């Protein structure tokens, strides 16, 4: 694979996009898991499908449409949730299905044969173009800068939003900023694992890191490293076995989480028994 990597541009793009996607999913994933925004992230990701469809219909880059729809979904869900007038589950569900429905409608309205949408739904890291890669790099840099620059404010906000608000920290701004970062992360991850599998890559490395350390900063670092391992290994498996890259990355991530969870449970029980016996 290393020789192929030096020969083929598409493999280099795939590797780089995997690395940048891992950075995003590691950092934002930990926040999503701690703030319990997993389903909301799913809603934002699936709404992006409408943007992909609109891109194809109007003839612009579908990933830009996904970006636009994700941002609108993030702000819409965030606003309605913050007003507290409606159950947020309902709003997430509606955005989720509306985005998918719009995507299907826009594709149906296209003249001629419909395009193959499977690379957006299930991801195809091997089809990442130079333009896609530049967008992924820019979004990754923005996400990392925003989190690192305001790290202490984020920590206070994530642990106790009410107290952060009393301190005068702009929690409403952080709330919307977080949702926009989630939308950006979704766009980065769509080309890697696809809309349907985005949730797995956002949660699996973060949840696995949660089993390894109880320190927020280390948890983000571990999640980034694990994401890299999953993406590169998944890419290698995909290349060797000629199977869908998104699926192999997600299956590897989920399998690793469950395996580690099982090992930790066994170790905890064994230690508990040892203590009781002594």
């Amino acid at each position, binding site marked *: 694979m290393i020789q192929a990597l030096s020969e083929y541009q598409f493999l280099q793009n795939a590797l780089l996009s995997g690395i940048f996607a891992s950075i995003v999913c590691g950092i934002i994933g930990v926040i999503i898991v*701690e703030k319990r925004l997993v389903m909301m992230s799913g809603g934002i990701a699936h709404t992006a499908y409408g943007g992909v469809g609109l891109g194809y219909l109007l003839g612009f880059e579908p990933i830009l449409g996904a970006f636009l729809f994700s941002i609108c979904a993030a702000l819409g869900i965030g606003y309605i949730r913050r007003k507290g007038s409606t159950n947020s589950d309902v709003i997430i569900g509606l955005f989720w299905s509306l985005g998918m429905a719009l995507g299907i409608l826009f594709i149906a309205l296209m003249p001629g044969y419909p395009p193959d949408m499977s690379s957006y739904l299930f991801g195809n890291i091997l089809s990442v173009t130079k333009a896609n890669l530049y967008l992924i790099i820019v979004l990754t840099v923005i996400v990392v800068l925003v989190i690192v*620059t305001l790290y202490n404010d984020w920590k*206070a906000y994530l*642990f*106790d939003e009410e*107290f952060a608000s009393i*301190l*005068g*920290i702009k929690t409403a701004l952080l709330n919307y900023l977080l949702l926009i970062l989630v939308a950006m992360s979704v766009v980065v991850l769509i080309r890697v694992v696809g809309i349907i599998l985005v949730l797995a890559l956002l949660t699996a490395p973060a949840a696995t890191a949660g089993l390894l350390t109880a320190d927020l900063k280390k948890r983000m670092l571990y999640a980034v490293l694990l994401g890299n391992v999953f993406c590169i290994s998944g890419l290698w498996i995909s290349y060797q076995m000629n199977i869908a890259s998104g699926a192999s990355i997600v299956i590897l991530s989920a399998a690793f989480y469950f395996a580690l969870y099982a090992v930790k449970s066994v170790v905890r029980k064994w230690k508990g028994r040892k203590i009781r016996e002594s």
Partner: protein
Amino acid sequence: MNKPAVHIENLSVYYGQTSAIADVCLDVADREYLGVIGPNGGGKSTLLKAILGLVPVTSGAVRIYGESPMRNRSLVGYVPQFAAMDKLFPITVTEVVLTGCLKPGLSPLFRFSSKNKRDVSRLLEQVGIAGLANRRISDLSGGEFQKMLIARALARKPRLLLLDEPTASVDAVSRNQIYSLLAELNKNMTIILVTHDLLAISSQVHRLACLNRHLVYHGEPQLTEHVVNSLYGCPVDLIAHGVPHRVLKEHKEEGVTR
């Protein structure tokens, strides 16, 4: 004459169509120690949130040292309910207390100063958990957790300290330690303490406010059976959880709607 720490005038707060507090008038003097009791849903926590400016006031006004809650929020320390906290969040005791030193707004690339860290060490010592500075919050007992939240509130150097049931989920020893700590803190600051601990509170506070949406009683802390029964609107029983405690036996009053 000094301005009262808290001045509440005809305060009403509604959540949608449901009244949480109706027409409450209350003054809390500087350095006063006020206990607030009442049944669940009686508006005690809402009263604290109105003082903090966290809930929209339907009618009436709240003043903290003569100014609006938003303007004088920096003078207020707040200890939230233990049950509302995420005990599994990956953070240490020191890190939690340090958040009390954060500045308003957003602070890009903010780093805690060595003075911040010294202050936090002193506060942890003051509340009696200096040895737990690097402990994860998931490893704390209820009492240790409450003391950490008190230290966090004190990191702001408040003149007014609001506490929402700080002795809930706390053993008897820790409860006594928290009451002693609050009595000590009261020498330098005003305290408003929301609690269900009816018997203990009588010996701790200067004045007592009994809230069941309306202010049923405001005065000396010695509770008579008549006051307690009129507060809860029904008989209460004396039961034991290691210590004597009054709890609501039956409370059938329906919510007041507008």
